[in-house]
């Protein structure tokens, strides 16, 4: 608790002894515009200063891990994109990479490139809305409307590629639902031109904005070792200066052959989180540009009998008919299809909010034995009391939106 500055007012404060103000308990509850989801903070206030803040979560606990134990691996892809619903594609890609790692399969170059492009697009979608909501919470409502115009462009691209605006369920174990449409590159290029203009506009409005600076600079600075001990990852950890990005630390799906800068900020406060997200969006645009330039051809499915059903031609040709039918049968009947060997794996990818980890335990059958998700929001929201205690009540709102907590991923 910062030592309150000694003011001449102290003379009256002794009198306050008998006027003792009781601590007010405020409920920053589950149904609140500033919590962006179903989070609850029980705050003990002394005037405007936050003495104690106790978060309470679980208001959106939907039993993801239990229902995934009753679904086959390719069915759980639909569950994953309801976790972080701001960037569903990152969840899909993260999950299918985990299962592929368990089965020891490597996706085809074209599939890996498409996954990287879509992951970066949905990272932009997540970061731009997070910046928009942070600005809206501090009063700049137009920024949020601008970001939604960008997200509608992205929804068009996602809908064109995957068929759904939000719940994409696009990846499969060892491949994708289908190949990208022919005008994919032209749509993405049109979006990239417009998106960088919008990012410039957002930066133009917010970077020099006196109110935005006063409300975010120096608010809840987090030192490096405390951030690491809290298990913070992603934008929150990089905002404290720790250069940890899973795309660089543990390159997956072809990230090693794209050049992009690992962005870190210094003080780890709400301002550097905002700066980091904006700069990361520009990096993502660079990565997408490189991916589109070097988009390899070829199949999108791994040629592996355990996963891929044979093409129609192989089945009803006189020569390969029987063998193709056995293929097809083995892939769809119970106990066949995607059956990873007995064992377990912890595989993580760089989701927009941080390190999204999948800890899968398989017992050799079609269904995962244990399906555990390491949500970045859980560990960043756990550090919320550390960041806000001692500050003012208005800082609670500023910090809350800088963390970009998503209840679906937090409560699973």
């Amino acid at each position: 608790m910062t030592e309150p500055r000694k003011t001449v007012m102290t003379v009256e404060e002794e009198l306050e002894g008998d006027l003792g103000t009781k601590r007010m308990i405020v409920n920053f509850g589950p149904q609140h515009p500033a919590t962006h989801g179903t989070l609850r903070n029980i705050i003990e206030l002394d005037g405007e200063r936050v003495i104690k803040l106790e978060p309470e979560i679980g208001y959106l606990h939907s039993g993801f891990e239990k229902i995934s134990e009753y679904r086959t691996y390719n069915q759980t892809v639909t569950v994953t994109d309801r976790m972080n619903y701001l960037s569903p594609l990152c969840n899909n890609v993260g999950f299918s990479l985990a299962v592929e790692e368990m089965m020891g399969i490597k996706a085809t170059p074209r599939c890996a490139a498409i996954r990287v492009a879509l992951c970066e697009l949905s990272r932009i979608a997540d970061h731009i809305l997070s910046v928009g909501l942070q600005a809206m919470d501090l009063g700049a409502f137009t920024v949020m409307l601008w970001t939604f115009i960008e997200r509608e462009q992205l929804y068009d691209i996602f809908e064109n590629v995957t068929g759904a605006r939000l719940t994409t369920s696009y990846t499969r174990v060892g491949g994708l639902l289908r190949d990208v449409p022919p005008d994919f590159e032209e749509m993405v290029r049109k979006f990239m031109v417009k998106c960088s203009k919008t990012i410039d506009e957002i930066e133009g409005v917010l970077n020099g904005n006196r109110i935005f600076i006063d409300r975010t600079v120096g608010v809840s600075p987090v030192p490096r070792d405390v951030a690491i001990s809290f298990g913070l990852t992603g934008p929150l950890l990089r905002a404290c200066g720790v250069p940890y990005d899973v795309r660089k630390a543990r390159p997956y799906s072809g990230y090693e052959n794209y050049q992009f800068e690992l962005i870190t900020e210094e003080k780890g406060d709400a301002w550097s989180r905002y700066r980091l997200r904006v700069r990361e969006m520009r990096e993502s645009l660079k990565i997408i540009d490189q991916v589109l330039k070097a988009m390899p051809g070829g199949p999108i499915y791994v040629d592996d009998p355990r996963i891929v059903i044979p093409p129609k031609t192989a089945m009803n040709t006189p020569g390969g008919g029987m063998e193709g039918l056995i293929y097809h049968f083995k892939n769809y009947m119970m106990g066949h299809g995607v059956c990873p060997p007995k064992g377990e794996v912890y595989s993580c990818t760089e989701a927009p909010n941080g390190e999204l980890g999948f800890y899968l335990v398989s017992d050799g059958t079609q269904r995962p034995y244990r399906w555990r998700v390491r949500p970045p929001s859980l560990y960043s929201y756990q550090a919320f009391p550390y960041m806000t205690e001692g500050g003012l009540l208005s800082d609670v709102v500023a910090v809350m939106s800088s963390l970009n907590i998503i209840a679906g991923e937090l409560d699973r």
Partner: protein
Amino acid sequence: MDPIEAVKTTFADQVLGTGAHAGQPWVDVKRDRIADILKMLRDDGGYDMLTDLTAVDYLNQGMAERFAVVYNLYSVKDNVRTRVKAWVPESDPTIDSASSLYRSAPWAEREVWDLMGITFKGHPGLKRLMLPENYEGHPLRKDYPLTGRGERMNFPRYIP
């Protein structure tokens, strides 16, 4: 310093075995001195981030015990990961808490207590994290029915 070997040498009596799958080794240990093992890994091994703490219910899968509490550790400095699995018997599902070592542990442990029913001794505030306070039972256990035991039905109906 290879973490698995270090645990084997210093805590020889605690180690039940090791395993590896998809290039990721782990070590199985008894639950008694898990706090010391984690402290050694954190201080000497440099594993300063507890990425994830979770539990798996190996109901009649022929494992050493029924529950396994899994600690996924990561060292930010030299970018290596390791995994420690502490086996907890069904008769007495308790284990020492890692909240004093890592600040990311409390909520993960509360979630494991809430969904799996493993109590953590020395935890600052072991309450349910996900489910309402008055919820009985631990849903992530294998013997718990998927559609629950009727908790989702008993709410008062609003009479217009």
